[in-house]
């Protein structure tokens, strides 16, 4: 009934093949991630000069920008994985989206904390309703809802379907909220822009460790999602075995 599988990317959607692949890929990415993050952060913390305007707070960028980047990319990955699940019904895809949820939420939390701590000396307050910070807070709420929906539904396929629908609708509303936040508080905090705008020249003394740190966070995300997906596959297999036991007994 099923056509003979030809070698393609989709083969890794088979749980067994995915387990075999991730068996050696996971340690590799994990160690690379640890190394890149260590190098990037040590370089950034100890070996970069102070900014003439922001002083040593510029060092927070090596945490803030990579985590913010991964917070958004994690949601984007969840969106793609949800679409793959809804269209091609690959279980690994749905489970990878589930595994990415908590990782993305934690990245959002790190971006929020570092943003707030950075804001304290710059704006004189721990929390400013800056549009960017506000959008990240809303993104965090979306992550919470997504994770809660996954854990609330008993049947795994139903949970995968419903969270995928939520992820797609949520993506649209997250983008809308982003524009709403800008509209809502435009012009109040233009002075203290958090990220380095594309136009401004940034010295390689900052760029190099930033890129290393960004690579590290990306690899860490990959490693954690691989590990989480492996766990979800095992949990799913466990559930299937328990169900079968119950059916036979």
């Amino acid at each position, binding site marked *: *009934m*099923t056509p003979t599988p030809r070698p393609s990317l989709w083969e890794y959607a*088979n*749980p067994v093949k995915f387990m075999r692949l991730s068996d050696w890929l996971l340690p590799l990415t994990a160690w690379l991630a640890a190394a890149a993050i260590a190098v990037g952060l040590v370089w950034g913390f100890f070996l970069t000069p102070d900014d003439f305007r922001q002083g040593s707070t510029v060092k927070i960028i090596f945490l803030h920008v990579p985590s913010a980047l991964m917070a958004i990319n994690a949601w984007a990955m969840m969106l793609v994985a949800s679409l793959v699940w809804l269209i091609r*019904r690959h*279980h690994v895809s749905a489970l990878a989206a589930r595994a990415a949820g908590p990782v993305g939420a934690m990245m959002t939390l790190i971006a929020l904390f570092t943003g707030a701590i950075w804001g304290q000396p710059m704006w004189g307050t721990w929390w400013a309703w800056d549009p960017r910070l506000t959008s990240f807070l809303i993104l965090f709420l979306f992550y919470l809802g997504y994770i809660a929906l996954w854990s609330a539904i008993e*049947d*795994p*396929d139903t949970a995968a379907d419903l969270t995928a629908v939520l992820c797609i609708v949520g993506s649209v509303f997250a983008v809308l909220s982003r524009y709403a936040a800008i509209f809502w508080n435009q012009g109040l905090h233009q002075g203290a822009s958090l990220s380095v705008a594309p136009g401004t020249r940034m010295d390689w003394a900052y760029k190099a460790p930033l890129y290393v740190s960004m690579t590290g966070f990306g690899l860490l995300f990959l490693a954690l999602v691989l590990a989480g997906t492996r766990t979800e*596959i095992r949990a*799913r*297999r466990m*559930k*299937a*075995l328990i*169900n*079968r036991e119950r*059916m*036979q007994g």
Partner: protein
Amino acid sequence: MELVASDLACARGGIALLEGVSLRLTPGQALILRGPNGCGKTTLLRTLAGLQPAMAGTISCPPETVAYSGHADGLKAVLSVRENLSFWAQIHDRAGVGVAMAAMNLTELADRQAQNLSAGQKRRLGLARLMVTGRWLWLLDEPTVSLDAASVALFGAIVRTHLAQGGAAIMATHIDLGLNEAAVLDLGGFRAAPRAPDGFDEAFV
């Protein structure tokens, strides 16, 4: 009008329950499903009704030609018997509320709210709903629960009328409805083997 289901496999909660179920039903025929609890009678009926997808196999009948009646009757407690029935009649764009009430002996209760009906009366109202759907194939899941002997006889009569008018019915029931012409299908023989086509939980086993 004919229902042909071939080589159906059904699952509940991601676990295959039934496989290789084939059945054929022409107007005027009735089929009674038997089998132990949990063998997949409800699941098969819901699959035939289009409420859940079949794991494998084909069903010739589109869901638009089928009337399903499950464990719950879909009654609104604060609406009267007549209002409940007229609502479903309007949804299906049909008349015949009076006939349906008469057939299930509900005419005297027409203005009583559904919350004040006994369990058996509620069930009768739920079954009367089938008559206002105008669908040719009735799928009935334990239709006689909480009905007394007289009501079971009434119900047997409306099913027989339905069959005589060119309808068909599939019932999961353990009670003898007096429909001697009905065929019996024991689902016990179609229990799915533990290893089923991939795509569900079994892919992980």
